[in-house]
C-alpha cells in the first residue's frame, strides 16, 4: 500500500490550538471503541493530493456544521513511521487507509486496544509532538 508524505488530523476545538501553532494532546483522542481486530481508531485524511485538504475542510456533521471548524494539523509520515518503530511503541501503533464513500482520502492511525490509559495518553502526546504545522480555516 502506498502512502503520501503526510496525513491531516482535523481540528474541531479552537482551544486545542495554541498561540504558537502547536496543538494539544487532546486533539489526538482515539476512539473509545476497540475494533474486532483489536485496534482503536484515530480518524485522519491522507494528504494524497491538493484535494485532500479541501475534502477534509468540507466535511459536515448531520446538523450541517463543519466537522472540523478550526482546521487541521499536518503529521509527516516519516515522523509517524519513526514513532511507530521506537522500541517503547513497537507493535502498538500503526495506520491504514479506510476510504469512505464521500472521502477517498480517509484513513486511521491505529492503537492497540489493550494499552493502559497513561500509555495511550503518552502516544497521543507523541503524535501531537510531531505535528509539523497547523492550518487554520480562513
Amino acid at each position, binding site marked *: 500500500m502506498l502512502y503520501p508524505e503526510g496525513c491531516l488530523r482535523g481540528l474541531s476545538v479552537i482551544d486545542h490550538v495554541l498561540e504558537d501553532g502547536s496543538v494539544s494532546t487532546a486533539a489526538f483522542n482515539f476512539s473509545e471503541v476497540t475494533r474486532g481486530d483489536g485496534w482503536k481508531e484515530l480518524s485522519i485524511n491522507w494528504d494524497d493530493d491538493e484535494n485532500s485538504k479541501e475534502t477534509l475542510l468540507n466535511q459536515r456533521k448531520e446538523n450541517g456544521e463543519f466537522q472540523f471548524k478550526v482546521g487541521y494539523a499536518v503529521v509527516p509520515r516519516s515522523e509517524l513511521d519513526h514513532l511507530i518503530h521506537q522500541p517503547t511503541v513497537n507493535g502498538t501503533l500503526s495506520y491504514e487507509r479506510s476510504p469512505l464513500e464521500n472521502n477517498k482520502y480517509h484513513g486511521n492511525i491505529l492503537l492497540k486496544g489493550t494499552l493502559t490509559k*497513561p500509555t495511550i495518553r503518552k502516544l497521543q502526546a507523541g503524535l501531537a509532538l510531531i505535528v509539523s504545522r497547523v492550518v487554520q480555516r480562513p
Partner: protein
Amino acid sequence: MTTYWQETDSKQFFPNQSRSYQIYIANETFGERPFQSFFASAESRLIKSALETIRIAPNQEVADEARRFLFRLQETVSSLQQLNFDLSFIQPIRAFISEDNTVLLEWIFRNYRIGFSIEENANESGWYLVSKRELGEISASGYLNPNIKNTLLWLINFVVSHS
C-alpha cells in the same frame, strides 16, 4: 485593601498580614509545609490559566481532582522556591478538556511535552513525558499514584533543565 510586600529574591508576593515568619519554628528541611501558605498564592501564575479552563469542565468531579492536582503541583514548585531555586521562568501549565471529559494538564514545548491526564476513572489518571530526538526521544508514562511526589520533582527538574 491588602498591602503586599515583595520579597525581591524569589519574586514572590505575600500579603502583609498579622501572620509572620516568627510564629513558626523554622525547620528548613524540604517539605516544611507552614511556609508554603505564604509562597503558594491561591491561584499563582503557574496554574491560574489551567484553573480558569477547568471551571467549564463538564464533569466537575474530574475538575475537582484536576484542581487538587494543580495545587499539589504549585505546592511542589513553591517548596523548591523556598530552597532558593529560581523557578519564576517556568511557563504556566495549560489545561485542555478532551471529548471524553478527561482534563489534560500540559506543559507544551517545541521539543518535548509533559502532561497529566485526570480521567473520569481516577484509577486511570496518569502522567507522561515525550521528547524529540534532540532530547533523547524520551517516552515515559505512569499512573498518578499517591507517591507521585518524586516523579513530580523529576518532571519539574526536566522542565527547569530544558527551559
